[in-house]
């Protein structure tokens, strides 16, 4: 799994968990907020319903008094109807906002019933009042009672209101009851004061007493529940209760008592009216205060819920933003640079040295990795350049070697052309072998004669080997050839060699050689051994004898003298001359081939012809070396005195 995928998975998982948790909280807070909004709307609807009830109390009172013939009552009644309509419209709008169809329908029914009551009231105004008045009053009372029930139904649906709010609700209920009873009492007493001789007097008085008592109870309840609420409210409740107890209630009791015993109320009528108006106004003010407190409280709760919801919403956005920003940072700072480094590394690994490296000025791990990669690339480029240079150098070396080798091969061909082919000359048959250790050779040999003179031969081995030795060998070959061709009659071989030695340039390498002459007709041979291994004389009978006891090489001491070795050389005798490349050739353990081994080989091959004998020697050498390679040039020259003319083609 790549780092990118791992990080993506990690980030998505963490981000999803975070966002889910916050979203759950957001959803919960959204629910709380909706609930708070509903509570506030419901409260507002109840507020309007309560006002509507108050307006309908007023309308009931004005209508009732108007029907009983109070002065100016019809005008008041119309005014109060207009006001109740306005308040009822308000209540209907509040219920519509609450989306409570049932309550809206119930309200509409109630309004129909109010409209019907108004129709009955108008009919009663134009005709005789009588018993219809009490029916209309009770009709209003029933409507208002149902309206208050509707309010209680709405209140019942609200669950979980806080203690402060529910305390206000309870006070509102008591104030509602108080307002109702005050209104009933006021209407009934007003009616009683208007019609002293009404037939319904005893029951109206009775109802007035009851409602007066209920209002007293409501005031007591208000007092008992008013303890846990705020100062503003406490003041208004105190105002209401103290006015009720000190001013209103005594007057009320007094009026009712006088109405009951039939005495005149004239002295207190106006005081009673004023008190009833004032207590109703005070109670209504208290109700408004309670409304305001509830509204404020619920609004506060709603705002709290909204704030919490906004907080969670903000947290959700912040969480998403943090995850996104974190991911962006990780991608920009870690994942993308790593992927660029990875690409560059792969390219380098594949040998693509032209691949660009990611540029960065960072000093953290990524920066160090990029720097290191830059070093790797530089090293790789240097290595590749070195490799190219090595290859080019190798190529040049190869080319140079090829040229040198071709040169050497050409030189070797030229040098080989100096050597005589197997031949017969002046009664002597000869055959030579020369194997350079490396193309060109410090060894050389030749067989030649002056016109009608004896056959001369020489074998040369220049000290060292390689190009210098090969050039010196060619020079010495030429020098010796010239010396042989210029030999004066009667000049001894030793004398010739001493001359050669004297004339040999001091700065050139010295060389060893065998220089000899053969005269098979006379049966004689002579040679000078100049630092060269002793030649072997193979007698016709099979005997083998080394010739000479050594001698100075040419070019060591300018004034040196040399010895001439004389021997008999009759037909059938053979002379084998070899260079130290044969006798000193070493096997793998470093043992030299040696003169002794050569001597044994030659004795064993005494019966072989020249070709076969030379072949057996080179074969033995190859076997000794276990290879075709030689460390030093190797030369073999065999000369044989021809026995008779018939032997010429003999391959003995």
């Amino acid at each position: 799994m790549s780092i990118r995928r791992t990080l993506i998975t990690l980030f998505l998982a963490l981000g999803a968990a975070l966002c889910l948790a916050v979203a759950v909280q957001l959803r919960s807070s959204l629910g709380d907020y909706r609930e708070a909004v509903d509570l506030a709307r419901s409260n507002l609807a109840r507020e309007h319903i309560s006002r509507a009830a108050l307006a309908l109390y007023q309308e009931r009172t004005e209508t009732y008094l108007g029907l009983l013939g109070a002065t100016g009552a019809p005008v008041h009644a119309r005014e109060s109807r207009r006001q109740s309509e306005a308040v009822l419209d308000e209540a209907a709008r509040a219920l519509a906002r609450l989306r409570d169809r049932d309550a809206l329908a119930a309200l509409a029914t109630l309004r129909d019933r109010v409209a019907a009551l108004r129709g009955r009231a108008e009919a009663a105004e134009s005709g005789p009042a009588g018993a219809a008045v009490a029916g209309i009053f009770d009709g209003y009372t029933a409507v208002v009672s149902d309206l208050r029930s509707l309010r209680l139904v709405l209140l019942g649906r609200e669950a979980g209101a806080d203690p402060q709010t529910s305390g206000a609700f309870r006070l509102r209920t008591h104030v509602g009851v108080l307002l109702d009873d005050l209104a009933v009492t006021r209407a009934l007493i007003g009616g009683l004061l208007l019609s002293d001789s009404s037939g319904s007097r005893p029951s109206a008085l009775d109802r007035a007493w009851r409602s007066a008592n209920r209002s007293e109870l409501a005031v007591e309840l208000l007092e008992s529940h008013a303890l846990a609420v705020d100062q503003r409210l406490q003041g208004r409740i105190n105002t209401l209760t103290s006015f009720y107890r000190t001013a209103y209630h005594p007057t009320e009791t007094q009026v009712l008592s006088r109405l009951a015993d039939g005495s005149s109320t004239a002295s207190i009528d106006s005081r009673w009216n004023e008190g009833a108006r004032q207590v109703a106004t005070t109670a209504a003010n208290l109700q408004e205060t309670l409304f305001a407190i509830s509204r404020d409280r619920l609004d506060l709760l709603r705002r709290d819920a909204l704030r919490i919801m906004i907080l969670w919403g903000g947290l959700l956005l912040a969480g998403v933003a943090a995850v996104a920003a974190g991911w962006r940072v990780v991608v920009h700072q870690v994942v993308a640079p790593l992927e660029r480094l990875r690409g560059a590394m792969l390219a380098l690994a594949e040998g693509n040295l032209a691949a660009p490296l990611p540029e960065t000025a960072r000093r953290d791990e990524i920066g160090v990795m990029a720097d290191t990669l830059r070093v790797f690339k530089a090293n790789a480029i240097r290595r590749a350049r070195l490799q190219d240079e090595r290859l080019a150098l190798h190529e040049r070396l190869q080319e140079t070697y090829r040229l040198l080798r071709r040169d050497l091969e050409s030189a070797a061909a030229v040098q080989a052309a100096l050597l005589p082919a197997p031949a017969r000359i002046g009664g002597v048959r000869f055959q030579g072998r020369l194997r350079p250790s490396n193309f060109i050779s410090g060894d050389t040999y030749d067989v030649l004669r002056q016109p009608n003179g004896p056959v001369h031969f020489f074998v040369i081995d220049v000290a060292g080997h390689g190009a210098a030795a090969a050039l010196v060998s060619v020079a010495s070959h030429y020098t010796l050839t010239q010396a042989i061709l210029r030999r004066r009659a009667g000049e001894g071989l030793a004398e010739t060699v001493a001359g050669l030695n004297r004339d040999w340039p001091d700065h050139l390498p010295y060389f060893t050689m065998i220089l000899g002459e053969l005269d098979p007709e006379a049966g004689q041979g002579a040679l000078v051994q100049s630092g060269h291994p002793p030649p072997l004389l193979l007698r016709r009978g099979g005997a083998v004898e080394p010739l000479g006891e050594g001698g100075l090489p040419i070019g060591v001491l300018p004034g040196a003298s040399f010895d001439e070795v004389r021997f008999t050389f009759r037909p059938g005798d053979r002379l084998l001359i070899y260079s130290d490349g044969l006798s000193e050739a070493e096997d793998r353990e470093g043992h030299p081939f040696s003169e002794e081994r050569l001597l044994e080989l030659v004795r064993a091959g005494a019966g072989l012809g020249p070709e076969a004998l030379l072949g057996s020697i080179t074969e033995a050498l190859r076997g000794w070396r276990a290879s075709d390679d030689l460390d030093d040039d190797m030369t073999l020259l065999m000369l044989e005195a021809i026995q008779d003319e018939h032997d010429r083609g003999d391959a003995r």
Partner: protein
Amino acid sequence: MNMTEEMRGEVLVLRLAEARLDASKAPALREELIRRVEAGHDRIVLDLSATEFMDSSGLGALVSGLKRMGARGTLAIAGAQGAVARLFQLTRMDRVFALHPSTDAALAQFGV
């Protein structure tokens, strides 16, 4: 070139520690000998007792040293044996170089 040297009196003794004195070693020996001769040493003993094989290149190096010494002094060879001694005989170098069986014998000859 494996070689040790010491002064015995006025004689410089060089001991060659090479078993083979062939074309691969000869140029270096030649340089060493010439350098010492040119440094003023006119009595040198070269001990070859550790050397088992010498070819014409090695002999050439000795000859070069000898030529450089000329008539000024002596280059003596000590401890030549086996193939080395045979090469001296074959080339008659035993007549050119002062050959001694050992360094002590050579030094005795010099009177040291």
